[in-house]
């Protein structure tokens, strides 16, 4: 039986391995293996995995690296993620990757794809614009076309045959990891005192660059070991953390918020590796790519970077708060993040209608000061405990 300490220490080592030694090791363990970097948040993991490529989420370097050269690429009013991502590339830390996928998450990532093309011509850089449309038939056909082209390109490089069977198997693998992620989320909601946010976060970040089945086994081992801790619940409020879906807050910030009196029982920190809707259903036509495209279009998980077709984002947040039994919402957005920040007023108006308390702060991935956030989260927790409102 693996102890919780051993698991957490492995997770920490993996998290700190910014040069992706573990990805290199995975590639060396088999012939023709590829690793493909994916910027947040849309990543066609099943397509990559079916082509023999390990999907590797690149979510910036956080506070694990000092950004020096990356800063020379951006003005002060641009968020931090593209700077540290470039720093990783310039230091050779992403050399284990055979290519990078840039989804149309926002104009910053969109433009980063161009910076990447000229800065790292040796990397294959691919841009994917997942449809944001109310017209599903043409959107599904377009996305299917884009994913198929990607699949064929990657298969040509890895030497794997681009068959429907392999794609169906990859969909099943990724779905099994999603099931384990669901169990992890449920365990955290049930016993946040045994599954602290920064550990669970490390585990979820491990999913960024692990084969799906191996991660599912690790997640289950962690949940079992964490539950055995048998800690007692503390007098803390339960909160949903909203807005940190791309540039990641430092782990210390998550810890600070939790220690200030909040159990973070739901968040959107690692969007892209978790389920965003019902799994793809391969129809009678046996076309798994069409099923994948449709699954994306039918995704139900709310996101600031997806068109909110039915104007439901606020109500979905309320439902999410209720589902995880949260007492309130912590809006945590990266500074200068237009998608996260533009979404907030729309969401808070609906929270107000439902008398759900919230507070909001901004951060950068390399923030080193947490006192203000600790105080803000602490005051928020106290007022919710005292008056049920912030």
């Amino acid at each position: 039986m693996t102890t919780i300490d051993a698991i957490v220490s492995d997770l920490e080592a993996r998290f700190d391995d910014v040069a992706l030694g573990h990805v290199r090791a995975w590639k060396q363990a088999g012939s023709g293996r590829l690793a493909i970097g994916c910027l947040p948040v849309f990543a066609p993991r099943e397509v990559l995995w079916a082509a023999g490529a390990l999907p590797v989420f690149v979510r910036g370097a956080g506070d694990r690296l000092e950004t020096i050269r990356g800063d020379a690429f951006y003005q002060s009013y641009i968020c931090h993620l593209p700077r540290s991502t470039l720093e990783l590339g310039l230091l050779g830390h992403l050399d284990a990757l055979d290519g990078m996928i840039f989804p149309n998450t926002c104009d910053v990532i969109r433009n980063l794809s161009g910076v990447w093309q000229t800065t790292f011509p040796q990397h294959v850089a691919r841009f994917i614009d997942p449809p944001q449309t109310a017209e599903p038939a043409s959107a599904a056909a377009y996305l299917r076309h884009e994913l198929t082209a990607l699949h064929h390109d990657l298969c040509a490089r890895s030497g794997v045959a681009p068959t429907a069977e392999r794609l169906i198997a990859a969909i099943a693998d990724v779905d099994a990891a999603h099931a384990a992620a669901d169990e992890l989320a449920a365990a955290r909601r049930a016993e946040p005192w045994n599954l602290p946010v920064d550990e669970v976060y490390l585990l979820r970040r491990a999913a960024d660059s692990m084969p799906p089945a191996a991660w599912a086994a690790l997640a289950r081992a962690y949940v079992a070991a964490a539950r055995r801790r048998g800690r007692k619940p503390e007098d803390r409020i339960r909160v949903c953390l909203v807005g940190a879906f791309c540039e990641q807050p430092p782990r210390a910030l998550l810890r600070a918020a939790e220690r200030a009196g909040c159990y973070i029982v739901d968040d959107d920190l690692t969007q892209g590796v978790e389920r965003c809707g019902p799994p793809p259903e391969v129809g009678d036509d046996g076309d798994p790519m069409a099923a994948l495209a449709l699954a994306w279009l039918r995704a139900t998980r709310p996101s600031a970077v997806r068109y909110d077709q039915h104007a439901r984002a606020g109500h979905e947040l309320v439902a999410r708060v209720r589902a995880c039994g949260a007492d309130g919402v912590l809006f945590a957005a990266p500074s200068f993040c237009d998608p996260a920040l533009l979404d907030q007023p729309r969401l808070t108006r609906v929270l107000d209608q439902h008398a759900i308390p919230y507070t909001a702060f901004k951060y950068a991935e390399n923030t080193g000061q947490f006192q203000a956030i600790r105080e803000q989260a602490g005051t928020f927790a106290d007022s919710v405990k005292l008056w049920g409102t912030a």
Partner: protein
Amino acid sequence: MSKQDAAIKKEASMEAQKGLLAGYFARLGRARDEGRPVVYTFVPGNLVELLSAFDVAPVYPEVNALQSAMRQRSGGFIREAERAGHSEDVCSYVKCDLGMLMKGNVGPTGDAIPPPDLLLLSFTGCFTFMQWFELLREQYRCEVAMLHVPYVGDGVVTDAMRSYVVEQLQREVIPKLEQVTGRRLDLDRLRELLACSRRAEDDLAWVFRSARHRPSPIDAYFGGVYYIGPIFTSFRGSEDACRYYATLRGEVEERLAAGQGPITPDGPLGDERFRLVIEGPPNWTSFRDFWKVFHDEGAVAVASTYTQVGGTYERGFRHDPARPLESLADYCLSCYTNLPLPQRSQILADMVREYEADGFVIHSVKSCNSFSAGQLHMLREVERLTGIPGGFIESDLVDARYYGHANIKNRIESYLQMLAARRAGAASAAAAAAAAAEVRP
């Protein structure tokens, strides 16, 4: 010619444009009474010919924002939006528009802007547009039509992209327009409008290309933003626009024949000392002061990228009445900010060469990630491609808090001094080389 003569000369096209704008706002004011549905949409990649085919009244929130800024009203609107919870960090165009809405939606001319019957969301070249319309939809609760124009990330407009846009036009946009207007699309009418667009586009492209002459008869950035007004907004496809661009072309032809430079707010520019290419949107809150920094030094913008956000006419794009929907799709896909950074850098470098520019300046605005994220990299790329050092200045579009006149003036003056020193160095090196060649046996 005296300054006054020049001012009178300027007025033919300027007056025509003023008339167009006044007519536009007057028609907008009558739209409700006349039973014309009102459609809000965005400038880059707009489908104005399609809207005109349905005889709807288009409203461009960005244009309202920039007009408010030029009339010094944007600050109050932005503060209003920030009071309502919008972050200081986000695009000021959005906040200016939302603030204007909160203050009764009275437009730049003092007339109330009618609410939309349809929000036509086509977010070409900017992701923020999508959220802007989500915020407007919350206020208006009207019909929304969404056109997703894929970003041309790898630099090539593919058949798949074109078909995808055309299908959305057929299945989403046109049916919604048919629904709100109660009429069917008349494809022949659309073709006529597109043919008309093409004529105006030819004239506008000619006007911009006239800057290849020395001296340039136009300023393609500060003057250029006026030239693009009608064609980037409601007038493309109209006979009015054709007349306006024919008049403008005639004026520029005259200036060209007379060897005259561009007309600035302080009169005609006498001595063209520097030819520049400019990237990025202008500052609207201090537009005249901003321009003055350049024309005081004899610096003329011979080309700019901002004048391509609503169509790359100068680089050859034309609407094609023979392929109406495909042509609308190509138009949306090829707008400047829908192109990837390597292509944008190449366009800048090509313009520096084609227009024989002495240098290029990037004006980076805090609001606009679509333009700004990556511009420092573009600066280095264009320097590498042209061998010419670039200038870099920062402010904002409509938020006056980020416009620092003294700072911009200092930077531009230093940049131009550097260009002058470079030119003097090159001239003395050339003279030395010529002298060396002469003494050689």
